[in-house]
């Protein structure tokens, strides 16, 4: 069986219909457990106090903000190379979810930054590249809405996605490129010495998995909707020609 079989809209809808309920259940279980564990059952940090609880939403949303764009990049490349409509529609479906994740990361970052840095906002490399990524998301969504022809919209948004990928990557690695911002480096590390304490680590990992599953569930669901919307437009266009 080839992965490209799922480029068939009917096959995609049929398969995701079977998978989606399980993804929703797993998403609710992991996200719910991670957030409840993190919020109610973890101690305060000795330096950051109770603001450490923001880690369970800030880090997973920031992670998904970047990963959503990378998923859109892969889907856009598939569209450019192989012209599979489902991949273009999957990228379109993922964009609002990615935008919401980016907005959550920005807002929770501001809430966290205020007591820790003494400011809601700073033109720090990571913060600025995240703001630009958010603007790219808005531009990407607006471009899809502005162009009537689906194929032209898919072409132009794919190009925009390629350009925006620079900022998606920058927002991940900005801290390493320019060592002059307020934002700290990676919170999580595979090195046990550098990583945060297990008491914060386990619920944070659960929250990250939960956010990831939420993105997958919403991505599948919204792609189904985009496929149906495209089919409706095609049928209406055919009606108009008759």
């Amino acid at each position: 069986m080839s992965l490209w079989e799922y480029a068939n809209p009917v096959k995609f809808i049929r398969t995701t219909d079977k998978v989606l309920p399980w993804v929703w259940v797993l998403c609710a279980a992991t996200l719910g457990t991670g957030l409840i564990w993190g919020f109610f059952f973890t101690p305060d940090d000795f330096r950051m106090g109770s603001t450490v609880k923001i880690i369970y939403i800030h880090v997973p949303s920031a992670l998904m903000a970047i990963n959503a764009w990378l998923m859109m990049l892969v889907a856009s490349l598939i569209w450019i190379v192989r012209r599979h409509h489902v991949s273009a529609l999957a990228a379109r479906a993922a964009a609002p979810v990615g935008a919401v994740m980016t907005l959550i990361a920005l807002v929770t970052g501001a809430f966290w930054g205020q007591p820790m840095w003494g400011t809601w906002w700073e033109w720090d490399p990571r913060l600025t590249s995240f703001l630009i990524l958010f603007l790219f998301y808005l531009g990407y969504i607006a471009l899809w809405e502005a162009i009537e022809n689906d194929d032209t919209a898919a072409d132009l948004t794919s190009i925009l996605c390629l350009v925006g990928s620079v900022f998606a990557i920058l927002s991940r690695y900005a801290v390493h490129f320019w060592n002059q911002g307020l934002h700290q480096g990676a919170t999580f590390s595979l090195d046990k010495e550098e990583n945060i304490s297990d008491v914060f680590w386990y619920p944070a990992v659960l929250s990250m998995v939960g956010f990831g599953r939420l993105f997958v569930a919403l991505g599948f669901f919204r792609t189904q909707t985009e496929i149906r919307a495209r089919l409706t437009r095609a049928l209406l266009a055919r009606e108009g020609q008759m």
Partner: protein
Amino acid sequence: MPVLGKYSLEVLGSYGVTLTLLVLIVAFSLRRARKVRLALEEVESRRVANG
């Protein structure tokens, strides 16, 4: 409810905004899915009726 001390506004604000935005994106996705489904059904039933 955990004791959040002097940072309660920041912590509760963060969770409040996050949960609101997540609920909104899910609700918006469900609403659009319903609207699109109805529109598709209407077009398809018209096609069947017109032969």
